[in-house]
């Protein structure tokens, strides 16, 4: 079957480096690799060994390598697995890779190694996702979170919640099948109501904490908004300089451009440009506004910059109106020019003197992370997918609670409880469909 053929990928990113790693997994991986390796017959090697060897093609040396052999099921994927450490350098690595492909290995799809590990019961779904998070981690906190997930913290947590729901389900079941036996446990509506409300609190709390964790892991999509010449770019620079941020200038879609990333107290801000709110009479302006609205829709934080040295004009007011339902911070810039705007909660800064920039940073963090909560917020859940499913479960439980209050029959509420139970199972993979698995592993980088 095509499904479990031998896959191959370059697991390190290509560029000049000391070494690169090529990885092969599948039943024939050792056989295939052995055909290009000389100096040692890896087919005779035990699993979990590293050997010095050479790559040869038509009798010519291609590279000097270290080769690791793992035998099923004791490997990352649970299959036979070979890792070849070539010298760094794109040409030599790709040459070896091409040799393996021509011998029958298939180019691996993104995440396929980890997918196989999951398929072979080497890890549960949350652990598999954690592998991706470790690869993508860009702060200490996000790495911590990923490692927690890898060590089944999420699994255990969600598994326990599922247990709580199952208890309610069992309580409901008991007396339905034995109505004539009054001495079977009489289940009181009060008990189910109480247990449900406890669960709702528990999951609500978990979602709140997970949202904070998600901010740590994924950062905050931030838009700096303002009419031209209010000091938008100088504010950006002020923020960037102080934090020695990495400016990547990756061109994205035509809609938005990631201007830069800054790490403020462990939280990454993804700063987005808003090209557009400039001319007011121009037909192009309409497209501009539309684009800005799109960027705004996606943004989790708006930094709205106003010029304190001049009175507000119509354009400022329209921006204030446009962002009134978003999480936003209104920034009064150019306070070095001694102006003042009468707006509640305005943060006054000077991009020139950098006055007020620290306050701004504190305010940003405060907006997303409740400091009182932070001490005991250590939960491993932080991914959008998990939070989405938790919210689904929460909404089912709330439905059950509401119906319970209206006096609906317990045996009908069971439908909500079962739904919640399933939603939680989708987090851990205790319930899962092939669609979910395919979707998930697509997000992985190649060679993992």
């Amino acid at each position, binding site marked *: 079957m095509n499904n479990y053929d031998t896959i191959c990928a370059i697991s390190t990113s290509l560029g000049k480096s000391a070494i690169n790693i090529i990885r092969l997994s599948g039943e024939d991986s050792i056989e295939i690799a052995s055909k290009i390796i000389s100096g040692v017959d890896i087919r005779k090697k035990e699993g979990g060994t590293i050997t010095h060897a050479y790559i040869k093609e038509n009798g010519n040396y291609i590279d000097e390598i270290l080769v690791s052999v793992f035998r099923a099921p004791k490997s990352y994927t649970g299959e036979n697995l070979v890792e070849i450490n070539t010298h760094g350098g794109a040409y030599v690595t790709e040459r070896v890779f091409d040799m393996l492909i021509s011998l029958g290995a298939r180019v691996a799809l993104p995440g396929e190694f980890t997918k196989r590990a999951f398929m072979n019961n080497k890890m549960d779904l949350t652990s598999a996702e954690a592998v991706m998070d470790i690869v993508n981690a860009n702060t200490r906190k996000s790495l911590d979170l990923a490692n927690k997930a890898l060590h089944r913290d999420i699994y255990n947590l969600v598994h326990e919640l599922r247990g709580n729901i199952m208890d309610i389900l069992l309580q409901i079941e008991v007396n339905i099948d034995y109505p004539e036996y009054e001495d079977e446990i009489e289940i009181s509506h009060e008990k189910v109501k109480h247990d449900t409300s406890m669960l709702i609190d528990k999951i609500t709390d978990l979602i709140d904490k997970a949202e904070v964790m998600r901010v740590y892991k994924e950062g905050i999509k931030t838009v700096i908004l303002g009419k031209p010449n209010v000091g938008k770019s100088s504010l950006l620079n002020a923020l960037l300089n102080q934090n020695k941020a990495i400016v990547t200038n990756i061109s994205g879609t035509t809609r938005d451009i990631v201007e830069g990333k800054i790490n403020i107290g462990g939280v990454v801000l993804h700063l987005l440009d808003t090209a557009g709110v400039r001319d007011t009479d121009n037909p192009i302006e309409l497209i501009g506004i539309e684009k800005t609205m799109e960027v705004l829709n996606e943004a989790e934080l708006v930094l709205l910059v106003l010029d304190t040295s001049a009175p507000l004009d119509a354009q400022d007011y329209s921006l204030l109106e446009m962002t009134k339902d978003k999480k936003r911070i209104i920034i009064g810039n150019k306070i070095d020019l001694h102006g003042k705007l009468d707006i509640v909660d305005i943060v006054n800064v000077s991009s020139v003197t950098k006055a007020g920039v620290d306050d701004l940073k504190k305010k940003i963090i405060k907006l997303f992370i409740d400091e009182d909560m932070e001490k005991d917020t250590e939960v491993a859940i932080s991914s959008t997918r998990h939070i989405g499913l938790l919210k689904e479960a929460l909404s089912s439980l709330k439905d059950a609670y509401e119906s319970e209050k209206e006096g609906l*029959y*317990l045996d009908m509420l069971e*439908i909500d409880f079962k739904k919640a139970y399933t939603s939680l199972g989708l987090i851990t993979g205790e319930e899962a469909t*092939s669609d979910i698995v395919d979707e998930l592993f697509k997000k992985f980088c190649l060679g993992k």
Partner: protein
Amino acid sequence: MNKYDVIVVGGGHAGVEAALSSARLNKKTILITGNIDYISSMPCNPSIGGPAKGILVREIDSLGGEMAKIADKTYIQMRLLNASNGPAVQALRAQSDKYMYHDEMLKVLRDTKNLEIKEAYVGKLLTEDKKVKGIETIDGEVILGKAVILTTGTYLNSICFMGKEAIHSGPEGQKTYSNLSESLMENGITLFRLKTGTPPRILDSSIDYSNMIVQKGDQDKKGFSYTTKEFLPLDKQVSCYLIHTTLKTKEIVMNNLDEAAALNGEIVGVGPRYCPSIESKYVRFSTKDTHQIFVEPVSLNSNKMYLQGFSTSLPKEIQEKMVKSLPGFENAEIIEYAYAIEYDAINPLQMKRSLESKIIENLFTAGQINGTSGYEEAAAQGLMAGINASRKLDNMEPFILRRDEAYIGVLIDDLVTKGTDEPYRMLTSRAEYRLLLRDDNAEDRLMHYGHSLGLISDELYNEFIESTKRVETEIERLKTIYITGNQTEKSKMDELGLSSVYSKESLFNLIKRPDYDYRKVMYVKGEDVALTDKEIASLNTTIKYEGYIRKSLKQAEELKKMESTIIPKDINYDDIHNIASEAKEKLKTVNPDTLGQASRISGVNPSDIMILSIYLKQYKRHV
């Protein structure tokens, strides 16, 4: 020599439904039973229905079976159980007249075209090249048939136990033989032992009822069958009685546990967990001092009373003491002693979803031989076996019900997918979508099948369709009529103690309120009620639980998707490397038809299902 299309072995609840459906589908059918007087007998409690079981009876009716009609003709008390719970779990329970039930069923059998009844004991299954040829009786008579349906109940190689006394006997002192068991094993069919038991029957006039809790019937307008138009008035219904065992009872049982065949190791068969003997109850719930016992009449024309909840395998002399320890039974006379019975059943995993054997072609099995317990479970399987044997002979696809369509679907799917190691009883908790599998919508779910199968007449089906239309039209109409809370309406609402209406509200929306229903809104509005009771019940449920029914339907969509992924017959599970070896073995044994069925096999994990599903996707691409 006479040759039949279908031979039905056994005349219990499974056998009669199998024989009737096969004969009604124009198959030349013979029903062979050891003793015609025990056709449709109720060797245990004289009642039909109850949670889940009552819905099974309604489903049998919608598919054109007989049990519901006979139950409606012969009940002596009718109650609605779980009335304080939701519509999904409410169920009728009838106290049946054991002898009338037999008489009425026998009449129907005798009046059915294509159906012959024969009194004989079957000793051998005749096969050729793993295909059914017929049967041979104990006396050596050969009867040939294209298909055989075995519905042997508890009669297959059975042993009755009363304490240390063990008699090779069928229930109620009937004969049993081990020959058929041997013949089945020779044909490669795996048998295992199950056990069940029945309580003592007590002489009515020796019981003092004066201090017992009386339980009267509470339904005089409801029956199991759609066709039933006449009901037994409440004042003509008999009473049952509720009592509690005493400390003395407990003491007698606990002091004699080593005498109980069920507990001292003499019986190897596994008993029904959901219908335990009194000694099992005392052992399992050792902290409980008393248990409920129901005293139920067996028939209007009998002096026997049945003690529901008091089945035992203790010896006769202990039974005497136990019975006398019950309140009101101080002077009781036992007419029939309690006994435990152990019998042979086939491994249901050797059976297809059509109830045909995987080992022997055209051999079908139904009822307790498949590992179930209960008259209703048996009848449901009998009906399905009769239908599918007939379809097989006509080269038609088997008739299979999904789990979201009927309890019958749940029952058969559970048996052939999970197997069973104890007598399987239908429980509402076994159904995932029970809000869809209600008592009140059995016709909506199944009558179209019954009709297209040929077991429901055009006339009846049209009557049902008309009725459905009336309900649908009325529901639409209720959306267009409003109550404004004017003086006339308000005084009527106050009269009924209904919650107030402050602004214009449609009758449809009002019915959704917990305290309102169809009759009440029609009264308040001053409209005439033109629907039947049944139609009103259906209308109320449809409107009141619309939201939850929709949720349930949505969840069932996921099941349908899994059920529509067919696993090819020639699949080789050894080709799928990554499935865990335990799961692989289970998959090979069950050989599921669909991905959905595979997902319900115990020992097959979600990750195995995902791998299987990915394999099937690629398989499809390759084929």
